[in-house]
């Protein structure tokens, strides 16, 4: 059998490897070949160590030959966002300050991928330290949207989204602090899941904003996203914020045939003036699909939505200003050797090592935490966050899921928002609330714009309601299949 391994799902590939229909090496080689052919235009990867990936694949094949039962992701290549540690691989966060930094250990999610016999393929591009919505803030390269090379792939996990959309990998890991999985998933026409805060260990994810960061999967099918979550999720004693009560994440199940009894809320604050008409139409179309499956749809209110972006841009930079302080040129990463004094070591290293968006946020956060301003900014933003979480709790008393557009606009073009940070920040207006409340959300492809660009719908569930969220997503996907990018 000479299948095109790059068009199959992760579940199907793992099955083929376990049954011996093919080898992990063959599957990985097919994806590497495709990636190498497409990389000159897509530029999804910051590193793609071909030989090491093949070695890992051969090790999986050797285990199978030795009679060992193979795991849930046997031989499945997984692209890993370059802010997640893979031992022995360079981990740069797309920043000059970490150029050449080789990870000393595996992130918990990478350990779990390895334990499931997956094969980490390479490290994907991102906005520097995951700060951005277009991957244009990478210090090294611009990743293009596989649907249109003039458009951004979204961000910050743009490399992971593009890699899955371009079928360089069936699965990828990203991180989502304010929409960094869901927004690029929407822009690239793939499934992007942000799990409940605490469901997936953050150990080995370079912290941007610790109370908001969450690792999650990109996939081309809901089933694959669920499969990936079942591998990477669950309690980790090395992450104190990891949920203890969280049962192992859900196993993939056949899509429910209908959604009878499911109550879906449409927040009126999300369907507002300024929302791109094509995006609105696609989202409403998706809601009609849910209705057609038997879901009850009603309007709801999340009254504090209007404060979400402002509060987020206090909380996230504040935490970032502290999290990024360790990049000081003393122990690892870039250091400016011309520095003569300790003060200069810090100034030169951080001055040349960080890009402008990172500096902007470090300064914002440093200011917001300063003595005398703390109560007016950080403490107040945390109170807003509490109110937003309460909005969701109250909404989920009456509905099972919330549906809304993932992004306010279709994919935009390179340079379109780089001179206007606020416009860029508003790309995440619909995704930030889920991070602020710590609940679960997924972006699903739901149509194409008039220019043929992907559009996404977001489904949000209460914390730890991933089974319900993914079941509804799977039913939606079955009722409204989305085209895989050809070529």
């Amino acid at each position, binding site marked *: 059998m000479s299948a095109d391994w790059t068009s199959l799902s992760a579940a199907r590939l793992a099955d083929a490897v376990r049954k011996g229909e093919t080898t992990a090496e063959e599957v990985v080689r097919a994806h590497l070949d495709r990636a190498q052919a497409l990389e000159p235009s897509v530029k999804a990867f910051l590193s793609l160590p071909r030989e090491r990936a093949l070695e890992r694949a051969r090790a999986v094949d050797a285990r199978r030959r030795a009679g060992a039962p193979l795991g849930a992701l046997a031989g499945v290549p997984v692209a890993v966002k370059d802010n997640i540690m893979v031992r022995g691989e360079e981990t740069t966060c797309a920043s000059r300050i970490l150029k050449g930094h080789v990870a000393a250990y595996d992130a918990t999610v990478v350990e779990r991928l390895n334990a499931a016999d997956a094969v980490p393929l390479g490290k994907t591009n991102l906005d520097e330290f995951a700060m951005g919505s277009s991957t244009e803030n990478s210090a090294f390269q611009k990743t293009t949207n596989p649907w249109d090379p003039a458009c951004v792939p979204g961000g910050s996990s743009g490399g992971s989204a593009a890699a899955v959309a371009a079928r360089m990998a069936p699965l990828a890991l990203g991180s989502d602090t304010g929409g960094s999985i869901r927004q690029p998933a929407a822009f690239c026409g793939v499934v992007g899941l942000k799990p409940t805060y605490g469901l997936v260990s953050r150990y080995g994810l370079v912290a941007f904003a610790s109370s908001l960061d969450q690792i999650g999967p990109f996939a081309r099918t809901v089933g694959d996203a669920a499969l990936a979550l079942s591998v990477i999720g669950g309690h980790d004693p090395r992450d104190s*914020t990891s949920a203890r009560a969280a049962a192992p994440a859900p196993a993939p199940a056949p899509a429910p045939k209908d959604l009878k009894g499911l109550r879906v809320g449409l927040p009126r604050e999300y369907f507002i003036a300024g929302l791109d008409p094509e995006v609105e139409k696609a989202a409403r179309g998706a809601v009609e699909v849910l209705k057609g499956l038997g879901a009850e749809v009603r309007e709801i209110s999340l009254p504090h939505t209007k404060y979400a972006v402002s509060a987020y841009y206090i909380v996230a930079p504040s935490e970032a200003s*502290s999290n990024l302080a360790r*990049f000081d040129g003393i122990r690892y990463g870039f250091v400016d050797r011309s520095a003569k004094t300790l003060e200069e070591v810090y100034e030169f290293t951080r001055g040349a090592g960080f890009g402008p968006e990172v500096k902007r946020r470090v300064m914002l956060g440093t200011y917001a935490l300063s003595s005398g301003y703390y109560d007016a900014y950080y403490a107040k933003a945390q109170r807003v966050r509490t109110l937003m979480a309460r909005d969701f709790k109250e909404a989920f008393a009456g509905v099972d899921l919330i549906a809304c557009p993932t992004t306010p606009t279709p994919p935009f073009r390179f340079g379109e928002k780089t001179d206007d940070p606020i416009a860029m920040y508003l790309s995440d207006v619909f995704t930030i609330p889920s991070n602020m409340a710590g609940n679960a959300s997924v972006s699903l492809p739901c149509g194409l714009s008039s220019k043929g660009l992907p559009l996404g719908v977001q489904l949000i569930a209460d914390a730890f309601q991933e089974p319900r969220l993914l079941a509804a997503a799977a039913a939606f996907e079955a009722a409204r299949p989305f085209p895989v990018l050809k070529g």
Partner: protein
Amino acid sequence: MTRYELVIGLEVHAQLATRTKLFCGCATDGFGETPNSRICPVCTAQPGTLPVLNEQAVALAYQAALALECRLNPVSIFARKNYFYPDLPKAYQISQYDKPFSEHGRLEIRVKDLPARSIGLTRIHLEEDAGKLLHEAAGLTLDGSLVDFNRAGIPLIEIVSEPELRSADEAYAYLTALKEVIQFVGASRCDMEKGEMRCDANVSVRPEGSDKFGTRAEIKNLNSFKNVKDAIEHEFRRQTELLEAGGRVIQETRLWNAETQATVAMRSKEDAHDYRYFPDPDLVPLTAAPERVAALKSALPELPAAKRARFVAALGLSAYDAEVLTGDKALSEFFETAATAAPAGAAKTVANLIATEFLGKLNAEGRGAGAAPFPAAHLGRLAGLVAGGTLSSKGAKDLFSRMWETGKDPRALVSELGLAQVSDDAQVREWVRQALAANPKAAADLKGGKQAAIGALVGAVMKLSQGKANPAVANKLIKEAVQA
């Protein structure tokens, strides 16, 4: 001339006696070891690592706080204290800020014969230590500096007193009492030479009788109790002279220089860091479950003050002996084990042996009571041999030396060496006969009523018997022989 009064508050850091660091699994025994031999990705702040709280550290911190009569807060919060320094790997220290784990404690102190005073403790909080910068290696001054992270992440408690101490002697007494309590509960070894206990002093002066505080100076680099006392006395002179000359004290941090016996300005209040404290999002709030607190409280050992009172009341020791025996936890345990092995009523003999023989040997060899060459029960048996009349005090002293050298049981040594005291009249009478014959003048003096002469005769008997004769029996038989 105005008379001034000192106002002192102390901030003491004590290293908790845990096996591993506060937020990772690295060992805490790195003092004096190869630099950076006790480190891991977490305590060197590799990107992506996260802290996990050491529960043993929490238990020890709670026990210290309970012993110091603090209230444990049901919920406390870890906060990040942000500042850049090469010995601080994350560029923030995980500490506690506005919600420490305990507050409102008390500690009783005594200065010589003055009545005891109760000093308030503002708070105790948990935090991690930083690493250490090395400016020289192998005796050579380095071009740059090196950093050793063995100490980074070691668990500390910071104990903050109220500004209620009024003299350098009180500060000294406070530190002594604090160390005693913390060591007794096993929360810290408090070995100052290893940096396991460190102290900063906030010192101000005010006219006697005033109820307002003066401007304070914070004195750092105080690495012995004596330094604390000396520095406070120096500050008192410096600040009063300043005020008397019409100047004013400015709020600043000053460093103690033990060589010049003076403090020097380090940084003023204006240069103070803005630490930008905020709750650490990597850690969850620390909750003190009532059952856990109750269990830790019931597991607390008897504290020194209570022990002293019991030694005096139940064992009949002098206040001085009780004080000596509780000055060190290992010593008090050694004493109690020895006293248990001694016959009833012999506790005082045990205390005497410790005061006269045991401490002398320990000090001479620089050992702690825990490192004695024989078990405590042996000392109890030695006291039993003395109390039962088998050994004279001279014999006990000799036997003690042999016990120290050999580690053997005193009963075995007595028979081995034939050291048992001879009280048998027939045997002692023979020695008395010889002594009288050899010392006719003393015998005649005694017979003539000169009672003092008996000393020389008893001495002669002891010499003839190689110290084995029971002196009381010899005394009695000499008198009988002379009067006969």
